[in-house]
């Protein structure tokens, strides 16, 4: 089975997000970027399939900030091939543009399955995986929590919420948006990533189609003006603990 896993670098949400000068996006210049956590799940699911029944795993990503690290990380974990689609993506890439670039790449590839994270924190114009499927005219399933080879295609467990999952069978090539792999993503020691870096081997080709328009214009971004904000408790751990106990006592939520 030939599997292509699409990876994307995303903003690390742990950091403080500042707005750019015109207030239409985060100020990307000073942010840290890391592999989208759901893409990491998609990669893990591909590697689990490879471990169980053999598969050829290609990872592909646009040349976004620090992407080499993620591509080498994937190689170190067991991906067979890494491809970087080059271009200027400093300003951020919409999901429609990303899907167009991935579609262009995939048109000249042989593949049975595309795995991609179910979403990224930047999907203002939607999730790239399903847009990609729409562009390629391929069947799709999102919010997958298990993907396994099954006869002429794959069996997908699709999480519907509140403990319900649907089991689908898709024959032939498909695009699957992964919510969670069957196991937590494997750990790879930094020494193995360094070794992969030294070995090199990221293929490069220019991204085509990435000028596709999302069709929506951002007027402004702003921190949610919530109607309420928590009353912040001050003091050290003991003082805050004491206040919390007072509060829950007043509410009658404490035993005794």
């Amino acid at each position, binding site marked *: 089975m030939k599997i292509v896993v699409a990876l994307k670098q995303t903003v690390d949400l742990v950091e403080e997000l500042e707005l750019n000068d015109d207030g239409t996006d985060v100020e990307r210049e000073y942010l840290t970027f890391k592999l989208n956590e759901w893409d990491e799940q998609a990669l893990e699911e591909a590697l689990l399939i490879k471990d169980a029944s053999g598969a050829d795993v290609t990872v592909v990503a646009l040349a976004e900030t620090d992407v080499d690290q993620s591509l080498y990380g994937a190689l170190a974990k067991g991906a067979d091939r890494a491809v970087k689609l080059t271009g200027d993506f400093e300003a951020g890439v919409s999901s429609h543009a990303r899907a167009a670039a991935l579609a262009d790449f995939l048109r000249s590839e042989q593949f049975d399955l595309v795995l991609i994270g179910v979403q990224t924190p930047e999907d203002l*114009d939607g999730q790239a995986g399903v847009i990609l499927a729409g562009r390629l005219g391929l069947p799709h399933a999102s919010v997958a929590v298990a993907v396994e080879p099954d006869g002429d295609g794959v069996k997908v467990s699709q*999480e*519907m919420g*509140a403990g319900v999952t649907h089991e*689908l069978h898709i*024959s032939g090539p498909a695009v699957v948006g992964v919510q969670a792999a069957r196991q937590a993503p494997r750990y790879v020691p930094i020494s193995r990533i360094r070794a992969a870096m030294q070995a090199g081997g990221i293929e490069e080709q220019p991204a085509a189609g990435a000028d596709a328009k999302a069709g929506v214009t951002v007027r402004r971004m702003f921190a949610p003006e919530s109607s309420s904000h928590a009353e912040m408790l001050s003091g050290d751990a003991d003082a805050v603990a004491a206040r919390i106990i007072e509060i829950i006592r007043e*509410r*009658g939520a404490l035993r005794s």
Partner: protein
Amino acid sequence: MSEDVFVLVEHHAGAVSDATHELLGMAQGLAAQTGGTVVGCLLGSEARGLADGLAADTVLYVDAPQLEAFVPEAYAAALAALVAERDPRALLIANTTVGMDVAGAVSARTGRPLIAYCSAIGVEDGALVATSQVYGGKLNAEVETDGPAVVSVVGGSAPAATGGSPSVEDVPGPDLSGIHTSFRARVEAESSDVDITAQDILVSVGRGIGGEDNIELAQELADALGATVSGSRPVTDAGWLPKSRQVGKSGRKVKPKLYLACGISGAPEHLEGMGDAELIIAINTDEKAPIFDAAHYGSTIDLFDLLPALTDQVKAVSA
């Protein structure tokens, strides 16, 4: 282009979803601004009766055996065909699994832009203007688009509308005989574990707890309080807590007397599951974490300091 506002009627196991009624509520507000009508799109197999009572002016009903359960490929094809033929101003889809699966595909198939994670929408100077949640709920984006659009809407964005008597139009769907996806089974998790929806107090942990070994810190506090430990998605995905303890969009919706959120950022998918708790106290070292907008009280003290202090004091007062 018509000025009508289309709504995908989501249904599972013979029942229309709650999210659909919220979409219809939002659609009524939007249609009043576009000057169009509210049109439900009902896809199913012998499911025409589900149109009864929907708060729409019209329901377009597409019947096919492949539409009996949710099959993403069949839904995307049928919906894209409806949109291409009727050319509505907007198609609203709930940002559920169904929405996350078909909204993008319909956008790509029909060449219409998609506004995702929408929480509010209206018309200004002829353009659709929407507010969307981005960056894990840390920011909102105000976006606009001139022409027609597909819109996926987050839960809780509009009051539910019910009690209509729409006229139902049967619409022939596209040929779905060649689709590659088949529905095999609906699986309900059986659980022998505690039911977190039935607990008065939840000590809930997020990725900030750092690892499986630290769950004990929360468990000790829970024991002292007579509470149960629940968690966010990354915690259950990592196997630190059983799946049955997950709070949120794809986990359980809880409404305890006290929800103590420890090391949880408050992503929209999490808030969906606990936003209605009677008392929410959040512990998070990031003062800008969105959880503080949902919480009644908050502290930025490190949970590794606060949890043991709290456990000691609870033990002291209840001794």
